[in-house]
């Protein structure tokens, strides 16, 4: 595997490409199943792909329901992370929401038209300069 520092600094556009995963969220989750179908559907965009959620869900719930394999890659090692505590303590659920980075997905309710991007390592300003 490539050195994570260089591997993940290549792309700011799509975290998923950098990590070598398919860019679209996988259908369904291997970790969670829904107790009930989506009600009061709203559509948001995850890395540009439309995805539905129930009004009142948090962004973190929406991501876990969709079965994404991570919401961010660590700025240090590039390791993938998913929400851990769901109550605002651990800050593992950070994503970019409507252009603002490092928002806590577990504290942010979904909104129709919301643009969510997963985070690919360090933000561009912190990238090591290319050799």
């Amino acid at each position, binding site marked *: 595997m490539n050195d994570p520092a260089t591997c993940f600094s290549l792309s700011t556009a799509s975290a998923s490409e950098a990590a070598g995963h398919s860019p679209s969220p996988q259908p369904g989750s*291997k*970790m969670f199943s829904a*107790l009930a179908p989506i009600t009061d559907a709203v559509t948001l965009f995850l890395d540009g792909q439309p995805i539905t959620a129930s009004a009142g869900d948090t962004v973190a719930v929406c991501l876990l329901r969709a079965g994404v394999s991570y919401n961010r890659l660590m700025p240090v090692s590039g390791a993938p992370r998913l929400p851990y505590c769901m109550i605002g303590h651990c800050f593992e659920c950070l994503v970019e929401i409507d252009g603002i980075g490092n928002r806590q997905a577990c504290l942010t309710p979904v909104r129709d038209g919301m643009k969510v991007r997963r985070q690919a390592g360090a933000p561009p300003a912190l990238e090591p300069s290319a050799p």
Partner: protein
Amino acid sequence: MTINAPLPDADVIIIGCGPAGMTAAVELAEAGRSVIVLDMQPTPGGQIFRNLEANLCDTSLAGQSLLAALGPAYRAGADLIQRFKACSSIDYRPQTTVWEVRPDGTVGWLQGMNAGYVRGRQVLLAHGAMERPVPFPGWTLPGVMTAGAVQTLLKAGHLKPRGNIVLAGTGPLLLLLANQLHQLGVKPALVGRTDRLSDNVRAARHLRPDGLIPLVKGLGWLGRLKLAGVKSVTGLENLAAHGAQSVESVSFTVGGKRRTLPCDLLIVHDGIVPAIDIPNAAGLRLQWDGPNASWRPATTPDGLGASTLPPEMSAEPCVLRITGDARKIGGADAAMAHGRVAAQAILAALDHGAGPSAEALRAVGKALSVRPFLDAAFPPGLAQALPDDDTIVCRCEELTAGDLRAKIRSGFRNMDALRGETRCGMGPCQGRSCMVTAARLLQDETRAADCPPTFRGRPPIRPIPLGAVAALSGLDPRATIRLTLEDKPENASEDTVDAPAE
């Protein structure tokens, strides 16, 4: 010209809208006091009654079976939430995070992109607990979650786990969750408890009559799991999660034998501890609670906190009180009982009234009387042994126990020096997940008798966008007076400067 201190925005500001915060708010509002309640969540209830109102209204079959699985202790919050919402005089501000609290009653808040300060003549911290952070190999992998997180997903996300599920750790919440999952048709592959029968037997001497109900409840959970054929072990040690991009298997030791199980979701829980982020940053005195391996704020029985500064150095008396699980872990009943006591103490401080009634204080004692038993029966397990050198301690900065030990040995022998040198505690969570382990490592390496103090907490303790800082409302007008810089020789030509005005 003298500029007066800003007028208070309310008699009381309450931070947190769980059982303790709601009880206190209702009590104070009914006594005619103005109350502002700030809470991170979108609806009242706290974590224990999370999303209760909406779930009660859900008449679908799925909704009803979720309510049945979550059980009567969850539904028990309905009455309090209703009373809270019926108090139209309470200024309730949901989805609001708190990024600063000062001992004089000033509170920094953020809601969406707006931020500011509000002031209370008295402030009540009712922000609750967090799950004890438990570093073990693989705890940062996707597919490792806390029991509280999975419960939140049930209550507020209507998601249930699937696949190979392993629950590991200790405490009532772990067993409760295992039961709730079973009721929803999810059969965990294993419930691995770190507590041992010997802990449970030894705990029996702490049993008080009031403790029998929780005991019977707990035995009922165990019995049902056994009937359902859920595998369970006790005395689990050395837990590890393995996998490349997410958890694929877990391993652990039981009775000296190493075992490995396939796993898609590892649910961990090692008991809950008071969340000390706000009291620590407010400069309140914390004490180390040995048996619970956690800090808790030092308070009087009615919840009054104490500043770490000596009295002659604090400009104004401390008006911060702490209640509920943020003060002492006791669960919802104890939180409601203490919320009442704290409210009565606040009324006394505002009006020079009589203070908490003997009956209200007794109710707290009664609700807490089961704790010694629970503490002895479920001692900290996963977090008991300090992590190996290769285990990540600081999740945010990906620092291992070995990294920290090496720095401590090379001379960084206090918490703030260690933080400055390693960045441990400087990640997005600001040490919420790593501080206690860093402190225990420091204690171990320096052979100190007591656990060292925390990292010094500084505002903002939660992120706040720069745009919101630029437009802060509620600034103290005294901060806008012209400051003289005469004592700075390089400013001799220029004798005054405008401090930032609101």
